């Protein structure tokens, strides 16, 4: 128990340092700072893997059973996704947008109670890790898409209105940002789809019904339709650029609202308190 909390704090520290380095790199335009930030982030990610493993061993269940664990897992998936993207795109500026988001999730995690959720027979199914992993990986990919969308809107505004300063020089080309949007969509959408399907199958084995219209399920379905519309628009009528960026941002806001809102304000079987049987 102590071990995983300590590791969590180490991860938090690494993400904090990486965020500072990324931001400093963007502000001072030193590429080596960005590279250094990536190594710090990768180290933090490795520690994060150990954190999750320690938690898993300590509690004996997939570490996504409380809000603290879920936020930590979300941040883990986000950083992992970013590091994978970095292999292909090598845009340190993207790190300056994604890393702070991961940091915010982690800080949210520290605020949430860390006590272990009581064992729940419903969670004792191997559909549970499959469902949450797919869902959170989807979230993470969509988070990257949203950050790329923010960058796109910032850069598009500059190119369109001919404002050449600061960020104009630091942000990558519109095409690159748009292709990140597309790439994220092609990864994120299948992940989310499989997440929903695996959840339905799990629900059937646990409660004897595929779909119960609880707030989270409804929200997820709305978000799924949103991304489906974007993917369809991209592939058929040439939606791209600004519109795709705005869609990705709205989609992610809806996603976050569904994820947090359900837990904090609404009820249903997806709230963490329901896991503990309260």
């Amino acid at each position, binding site marked *: 128990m102590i071990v995983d909390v300590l590791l969590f704090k180490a991860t938090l520290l690494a993400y904090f340092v990486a965020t500072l380095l990324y931001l400093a790199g963007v502000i001072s*335009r*030193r590429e080596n700072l960005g590279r250094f930030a990536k190594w710090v982030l990768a180290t933090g990610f490795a520690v994060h893997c150990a954190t999750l493993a320690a938690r898993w061993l300590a509690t004996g269940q997939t570490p996504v059973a409380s809000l603290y664990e879920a936020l930590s897992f979300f941040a883990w998936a986000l950083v992992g996704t970013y590091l994978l993207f970095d292999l292909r795109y090598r845009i340190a500026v993207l790190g300056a947008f994604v890393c702070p988001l991961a940091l915010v999730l982690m800080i949210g995690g520290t605020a949430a109670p860390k006590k272990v959720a009581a064992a729940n027979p419903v969670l004792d199914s191997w559909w549970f890790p499959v469902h949450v992993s797919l869902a959170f990986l989807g979230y993470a990919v969509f988070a990257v898409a949203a950050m790329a969308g923010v960058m796109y809107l910032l*850069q598009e505004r500059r*190119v*369109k209105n*001919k404002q*050449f*300063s600061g960020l*104009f*020089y630091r942000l*990558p*080309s*519109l*095409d*690159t940002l748009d*292709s990140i949007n597309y790439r994220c969509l092609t990864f994120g959408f299948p992940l989310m789809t499989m997440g929903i399907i695996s959840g339905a199958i799990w629900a059937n084995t646990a409660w004897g019904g595929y779909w119960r219209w609880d707030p989270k399920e409804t929200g997820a379905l709305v978000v799924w339709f949103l991304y489906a519309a974007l993917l369809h628009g991209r592939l058929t*009528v*040439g*939606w*791209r*650029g*600004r*519109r795709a960026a705005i869609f990705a941002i709205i989609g992610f806001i809806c996603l976050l609202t569904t994820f947090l809102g359900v837990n904090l304000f609404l009820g249903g079987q997806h709230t963490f308190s329901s896991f503990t049987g309260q």
Partner: protein
Amino acid sequence: MHIVVVGLSHHTAPVEVRERLAFAPTAMEKPLHQMLALPAVAEALIVSTCNRVELYAATKEPETAIVNLRRFLASYHGAELEEVAPHLYDHLGEVAIRHLFRVASSLDSMIIGEPQILGQIKTAYGYAVEFKTAGLILNRFLHKAFSVAKRVRTETGIASSAVSVSFAAVELARKIFDRLDDKGVMIIGAGEMCELAARHFVSNGVTKVLVTNRTFERAEKLAAEFNGRAVPFERFTDHLAEVDIIMTSTGAPTFILDHKQMEEVLRRRKNRPMFLIDIAVPRDVDPKVNDLDNVYLYDVDDLQGVVQANLKERQKEAHRAEGIIGEEISQFHLWLSNLEVKPTIVALRRRFEETAAQEMAKTFGNHRDLSDAQRKGIEAMTNAIVNKLLHRPVALLKRTQNETSGEDYVDAVRALFDLPAPAADETPIEPLDDQNEKP
């Protein structure tokens, strides 16, 4: 040893003076040898470009060397010194070192960050090496300047943004498109400016070039230059959807491309982004086109704005470059002064120790009855005296080696103890961090 520079540049002299005092790049042997033959000049280097003429020298007497170099620069070209003197500048020591570092890093150039100057200095240094007028000091000095320039180039964005209108167009395209090699360009109206920009695009990877012009022959001629295709002016709108970048410079009195046409083109392209460069005055493209999503329209003034912004950006980066140069100067200066101080300290110590050894040998010869223990005692005492006496002067030499008074102390110590002047070549060179390739 000191480094001095005498010269003139676009900052101090108009082109008439610069061309009068320039050295022909094909005949550097004569002036280099004449310069080396001047009194007080130990090593010589001449940098002569269209924007500057500079004589660099290593010398023991900097003031004399500067006077001689000024006179040489005028007389070699048959000019009166009084006439050109107002355009000349001279620097010595640290200021001269900073000067070359700044010049090599293109901070002193007419367009900050332009890349040619480094190559020109490398060529100049090549001549000095070829004709053996550069020695230990200038060798190290120039290699250091090259590595400083390299550092400035890689660690700052001083040369990263375009400062010409035609190149600014390419740079903007790179902010819109990820890559240019799969993009197409259409040139409407075969103007000079379009041609130049098109050349930049082609050299940056664009392979597909379409050209259209009211007179079809001119379009064909220009298209042939870029391995492109000429399309008839009456039907050029049919081909707009094929290209990503459009440059127009026709003499048409009204817009040749309007909002509605572009809307249609975009629909056909499935909204793939387009970059329009309207160089014509009066303009060829309706400015309202810029309101369309995924279309970016720039006119001449906009491009000029990019250039201005880039120049400002370069100024900012130049500021950082000055910081890098500052760091490197102190490092080089330390090496230069070490060149004098270290051998002086070694020679001083050797003089003391040799004297002590001689006197001890004499004493031991006269007193053969001394026991081993007593001899050891005398030896120890003598060494202690030598070390105690040396301690303060050595500390002073080391402490003052970075100050101007350091040279005086070195000279005084040499004179007082009649130390031999060290052959510069024998001084061990401490490795600096310049792994620059030789030009």
